[in-house]
Each structure stands twice: as C-alpha cells, then as structure tokens.
C-alpha cells in the first residue's frame, strides 16, 4: 500500500490538523502585482470559461479587456502561461471564499459546512468561472493537471483533519478523504461540463453526508444532511 503511506507522509509534512487554520493560505493572491495583470487574469478566466480552453485566444482576452497586444505580452509569454497563472489566481480566490466563511466556525463539521456552502454558492454565482477552473484545466496540459492535483490535495488534507476532531468516532483508511474529494469533484465536474449553470447550492446536503459519513458514522451523516437541508 505505497499510495497510502505516501499520503500519510505528505499529510504529516504539511501539518494540516493545526487548530484555527481551515484551508491553507491562498497561495497565488500575491502573484497579482498590478491591476492590469489582474484584469488580464480575470479576462482569461472569463474567455476560457465561456469558450473553452482550445478556442480561447489572446485576441479574445484583449477584446474583452480593451488592452493592447503589447500590454498582454509585457505580462505573459503566451496563452498557456497566462492561463496557468489565472488558474492559480481563480483557485486562490475560491479558497479565500471558503476560508473566510469557515473562519467563523470552530468545529470541523461547522467549518466544512460553511466553507463548502460558500464554495457551492460561488459556483452558483459564476458557473463560467467554475468551468474555467474545474473543466478546462484538463485541456491545459500536464502543468495544469499538476496544479489541479495540488489544489485537490489541500482540500483533501482539510477533510482528513476530521480524524483529529475531538468529537470524531471513526478512523477510516487514509484513502477516505481522497475518495470524498474526488467524488464531490466528479459530481460538480459533470454538472459544469454538461453546461448546467444552477443546482450547485442544492448539493450541500449530499456533500455533507458523504464527507461526514466516514469520520462520524451514518447517524451523524444523516443528521448533517438534514441540517444542511433546513
């Protein structure tokens, strides 16, 4: 079970069980060094989210932002480089949304409910942005996939911190958190890829059920699902 061992080592190295800290610091916000750069990143996400990565072009970003060609190339080498930074930027923004919602809670379950709820609200509010991040990253080559894995790993580490929660009763195998994140991701991905633009908010009760079940058991999971529906 080399995979499980590796997961354990990484989780330990990043020390995710630390109290108070929900999702790790958004890693890319500091990358945006100027308002112009931020406009380009936002424009890139909008163009990719609306048209798909393959169709998206620097020209479309320029048209949308009203910037000159040179302004783009002063900041980025090409579309690929710009998208990768835009991906980090968009993910960091999503993580900030989740973290600040969760910061007001002190239990793992409360943090998860608030953070996940805020994320799903963000998807509901801007499904094109979500599509640019969740669906189109697959078209952006190995580096895009690597960054996607890192982002999913951060969520996985937070989920798995449940095994240290004082009220937790179960110690599921290390793979449990990865399965939860992958499962939630699959449901969201399928909706976005099919072009749906609503119904994300309504996923919260189901997601709470799946995430709580392995750490707290079926009764707690059902209670969470019912509470999230209310």
């Amino acid at each position, binding site marked *: 079970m080399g995979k499980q061992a590796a997961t354990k080592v990484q989780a330990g190295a990043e020390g995710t069980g630390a109290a108070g800290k929900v999702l790790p610091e958004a890693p890319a916000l500091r990358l945006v060094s100027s308002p112009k750069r931020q406009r380009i990143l936002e424009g890139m996400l909008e163009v990719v989210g609306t048209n798909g990565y393959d169709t998206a072009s620097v020209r479309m970003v320029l048209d949308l932002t009203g910037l000159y060609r040179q302004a783009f190339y002063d900041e980025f080498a090409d579309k690929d480089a710009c998208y990768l930074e835009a991906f980090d930027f968009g993910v960091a923004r999503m993580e900030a949304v989740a973290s600040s919602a969760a910061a007001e809670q002190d239990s793992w379950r409360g943090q998860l409910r608030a953070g996940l709820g805020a994320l799903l609200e963000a998807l509901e509010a801007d499904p094109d942005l979500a599509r640019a991040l969740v669906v189109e990253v697959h078209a952006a080559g190995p580096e895009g996939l690597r960054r996607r894995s890192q982002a999913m790993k951060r969520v996985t580490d937070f989920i798995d911190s449940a095994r240290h929660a004082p009220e937790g009763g179960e110690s599921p*195998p290390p793979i449990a958190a990865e399965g939860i994140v992958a*499962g939630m991701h*699959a449901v969201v991905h399928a909706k976005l890829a099919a072009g749906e633009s609503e119904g994300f908010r309504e996923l919260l009760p189901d997601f709470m059920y799946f995430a709580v079940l392995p750490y707290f058991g079926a009764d707690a999971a059902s209670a969470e699902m019912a509470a999230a529906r209310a």
Partner: protein
Amino acid sequence: MDSPSTSNPGEVPTGGAQALPRAYLVRSQRERLLEAMLRVAAAKGYEATTVTDVIEIAGVSQATFDAMFEDKAACFLEAYDAVFDVLIAHVATAFEAAADEPWPERIAAGLGALVDLLSTEAEIARLSMVEVTAAGDDARSRYRAALARFTPFLEEGRDYSSQVEELPADTARFAIGGATSMIFDEIRAGRGPELKRILPDLVFAVLMPYLGPEAAEDEMRRVTR
C-alpha cells in the same frame, strides 16, 4: 480489443479472405481501423495522430477509411466507445460470475476485473481515462457518458445502505467519480501497469458511500493481501 481479425494488423487479407462474406470483411476492416486508431493515439497522443498513420497500421486504404469514417475524430470516438464496450463487458462478466455472493463482493470482483484489464492495456488505459479529458468537448462528453455506464452495477447498493430512505441521489456518480479519479491519478503518475495495487482503495471508495466506513473497510481488507 483482442479479436482474431486484428492479430496481424499489417497484413492485408488476400486469397482465402475472398471467400469470406463481404460483410465480414467490412466489419473486420472497420475493427482493424478502430484498433489501429487506439494503438497510434495511445502511442503518439491524439493530437499527433494522423489518418495516414492509422490506415498504414490497419493495412487499409485511404478510400476504405473515407468510406467508413467522416474524419479522424469520428474514427476516434467510435474506437473510444468500443474500448468501453470491452471494459463494461469485462466488468459485467466478473460481476455475474460472482452472482451468488453478496453485492459488496460482486463489486470487488468487478473492480478487480477492471484494474486487471486496465493494467494489462496500460497504453489504452492512459488514452481512454486520461488523455481523453484533453481531447475536446466531444471526447469529453463521450467520457462522461462512458462512466455513466457503470451506474447499473451500483443500483443494488441502495439495499445495503442503512440509510436507504435518504441516500443522496448522486451516490452512484459520487462513488464512480471517486474511483475514477484515483485511477486517473495513478495512470497519470505513470503507475498504470501497477494499477492492481490500488484495488483495495477503489473497493473502499466505491462501497463507503453505501455501506459506511466500517463495512467498507472490511471489504477492503478482503481484497488486500
């Protein structure tokens, strides 16, 4: 993927082949093209694959290709569906062979058959589970549709849940998505040929939403050696 007609893809049928019914010959040419498409795309990547590569490997003329497929993409998509026909049939066979066992064990048997086949055909596994997600909208929607074909195997799990009244509607998609993502990560990390090593993880991920953590872990242990 293992039909006799494709065992010698470079050889154009001559002599005896003329005695075969024409429908058979057409079908086998089509199969050869589909298999050649998979082999070439798995080796070179879909983008770099050309129709010329495919017809050379298949030993079929350009005119024959043109008569059968509108373009490279059409051939690829049909080949893609054929891969999942084989995968589903393989899983179904293992699932049915365990018909006397409880559902969780049948799921473990089906997953075992799936990772067996994927690890034996590691190149095609990479093509159909990983690269497809980068091959454009049509390919991606085929991929989603293909994964949904695993749903019927999970239906019975609802009877095994202690929460049968209110098991979430998306449970099957969640379970399949969890397992698929683990397979995706392994193949992408270059561990496709050793995919069998994550069978216990896959068993847990698929069963946990239905059975809860303890029973799912018992099933996981059963396949761990």
